[in-house]
Each structure stands twice: as C-alpha cells, then as structure tokens.
C-alpha cells in the first residue's frame, strides 16, 4: 500500500476510531521527512531505532510496504504485503468490516 493512498483512507475514516501508524524502517530521516512533507501526510509517523530494530527483530519485516490491520482487541486481522492498484479497495473493505464488528459476534 503506497503511503499517499493511505492519506485518503485516513481522511475518510479518521473520525470513526481509525488510526494509521507508519514506521520508517531505514532511519533515512532526511528523505522520509521530505516525502511526508511533499505528500502532505498527516497520520502518525515513527522512526525505527538504531539499537532496537523493531521492524526486523520484532516484526520480521523485510519486504516493503507491509501492513497490518489491527482490531480493538489488538488482534492482527489482516496482513498485506506490496502495493498494487486496487489494494486500497480491499483494505477499505477490511477497515469497514472491523469497524462494524464490535468485538463479539456480528
């Protein structure tokens, strides 16, 4: 999922209990901040640690972009790797499904 395409999802669903957190893996701060500024991205951005490589050691992520969709209970309900046109349609479907799903049975 390309980050600028997520901005639209975030703008649409941000008030409905949806948040986006993007972790930059390579600590390329200069380019990252330039990109975020140029594309006017407004969700949460974090930077990977030098000593504590959360991206690789905790999440084992080596392919980018990788996205996890997490429900209210903290469960990873959807895992997506890569970016292709139309991916955001499925992602939005999953977001809506999880938003309407209040934890228990539907």
């Amino acid at each position, binding site marked *: 999922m390309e980050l600028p395409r997520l901005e639209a999802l975030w703008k649409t669903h941000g008030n409905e209990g949806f*948040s986006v957190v993007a972790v*930059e893996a*390579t600590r390329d701060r200069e380019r990252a901040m330039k990109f975020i500024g140029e594309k006017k991205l407004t969700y949460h951005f974090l930077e990977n640690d030098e000593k504590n490589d959360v991206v690789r050691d905790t999440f084992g992520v080596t392919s980018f972009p990788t996205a996890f969709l*997490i*429900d209210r209970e903290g469960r990873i309900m959807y895992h997506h790797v890569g970016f292709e046109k139309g991916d955001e349609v499925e992602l939005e479907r999953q977001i809506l499904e999880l938003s309407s799903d209040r934890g228990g049975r539907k």
Partner: protein
Amino acid sequence: MVKRSLAVLVLGVILLYGWGGDGQARADQAKDPRAQKAEEAYQKAVEARRALDSTEEKLAVTKKFLDEFPESEHTASAIGAVFYYQGTDLGDMQGAVAFAEAIRAKVSDPEIAKSVDKEMISIYGEAGILPKMLAVADRLSAAGALDFGDHWTIITSALKADNWDLTRGYCGKARKLANAEVYRTEYPDRDLTDEDVAKAVKNREGMLLVSDAWARANQGELDAALSDFATADGLVGRSYIGAPEHDLNLYWGKVLLMKGDHQAAAEKLAVEGLIMRNDEALAGLKKAYVGTHGNETGFDDYTAQLHRSIAKKVDDFELSDYKGERRHFSDLRKDVTLLCFWFPT
C-alpha cells in the same frame, strides 16, 4: 561498518537488504565521464519519480532516462521499473517486454549485459514467455552466472504456468546452490554470522522442497508431497503472524484437500485465507468446510469465529516520532489501526 543498502523492486514489493547503511556511497566511486552523467541522470529520474503520483508520468521519466542512457549500471533496475509501471500496473505486458528488448539490444558491456539478462529472466517469466526466459537462462548458465535468485525466479514462473517438469528440473539445479559456501559468495558485502548463513541455507532448502513437492503432487505423488511438506515445515522461516514462508501452508492445504482430509486442510489454509486474504486459500477453506458439513450453510459464521481465534495479538513497542518524542504504539491505537512499515525510495 558501512553496510550497503540495496533495494530490489519485485512485483510491487520492495525487498531491502542490509539496511542501516549509506545508500549514497556508490555514487562516490570514480567513474568515466559518461558513467558519471548516467549516474546523475538516474538520480534525477529517481528524484523526479518520487515527486510524481501518476504511473504514466513515472513511466515516462524512467523511459526517458533509458532512451538517453541505455547502457549504465542502472539499466537493469530501470528496465525493471518500466516493466512494473507499464506491464504490472498499467497492464501492457507486451509493450513493456518490447521496450525492454529494445534497450537490451543496445547493451554491449558484458557486466551490464549480465545484469540486464537477469532482469530479462524475471520480465519474461512474469509475462509468461517461458521459451525466451529459458533461452536467456541457458546463456547465463553457460557463463556460470545463474545464481540462486535467478533459479528461484524461473521456478516461480514455472509454477505459475503449471509447468511441473520445469519446476522440478530447476528445483534440482537450484539445490546445488543451497549451501553455505555459495550463499557467502553471493553476498560478499553482507556481514553474516554462521548462524545467519545456516538459517538462510535452511530456508533455501525449504523453499525448493515446497515447490518441488507441489509439482510432485500435481504429477500424482500425493503422499510423497505430504511428507516433503512436513520436512519443509522445519526448514522455512515464519512470518510475524505465524505463517510459514513460501506459501507452504497454501500448497500443503491444497494437497490435503486432494487427499480428502478436510479437517487438516482447513487448519493449514486458515491464516493464508483469512488473514492474508489469499483467494485460493479462502476457496480451499470453503471446499474443506463443505467437505465436512455437506453444504455452505454457516460458513460465514464459521470463518468469522475462526478468523478471530487464529489472529495473533500485536506486540507493543516504543519508537520516536519526528519531533523526537518517544511514543508507545498502544497509545496511538484506536478501534481499528493500520500499522505499516515503509522506507522512502
């Protein structure tokens, strides 16, 4: 120590090797003026692409670079990018292949030709033009330049084309490269411990076993395939959500379905089908359900419950934002949260 970072674009996924290093280092090497110019033009093209949003514009910028500098150390990656934009994203495979071939015809430097040929293997493979892919592979192989990654590209293309003999043939060839010595030679720049190498070699053995077993199953050897899957399960790595890599459980589940073992098939297909939303795995899960229950009634409730029960709980972590403030992920979460990992290309 300066690690080199190398980003490879494959089918809309970027694989990143040895990050944490200085990606600009290569630009400092002494070069002849023509190569220097090509380097500058390439950096400009990459910079321009970054600022553009539309695929068509990104494609045009990349093609312009290749038209001006058809022969440089960036030819292969630029051709790969053209194929991704024009072929994968815009759906014009034929046009993308024709463009790549025209550029390849202009390359004469043997080292650059080699890197472009490697790219052509994956382009032909992705476009499903297997005879041309194999012709390039034979040429590289005769020069001793066909590495494990090239073999793997051929295997995945053969699998996609349901070509079982080709799959098994290249699994056999690639097995000779699944050892520590070859692995170290292929990544001379990486700072590898013996443990890293052993893990990588095991993973290579496992991925070949998975592909070979799936081809085997399609040739009718179901039991042998199941036994190979069980062996591969101990070899391949696992993703954070617990799925074995290289589609092991997808293939394993499909073979269990062929055997009529619906219960076991459903167990294998659950994560791929429900969390990774793999269409084949989801279809297999439904088939397994119908096999056990006789019809589709109750399938949606079954998957809703199964989905929640197999989903892994996310670990909390603490990182800094760009204001330098430490943030706990748990504080940023809402009812629904998208956590994504990226790097600026």
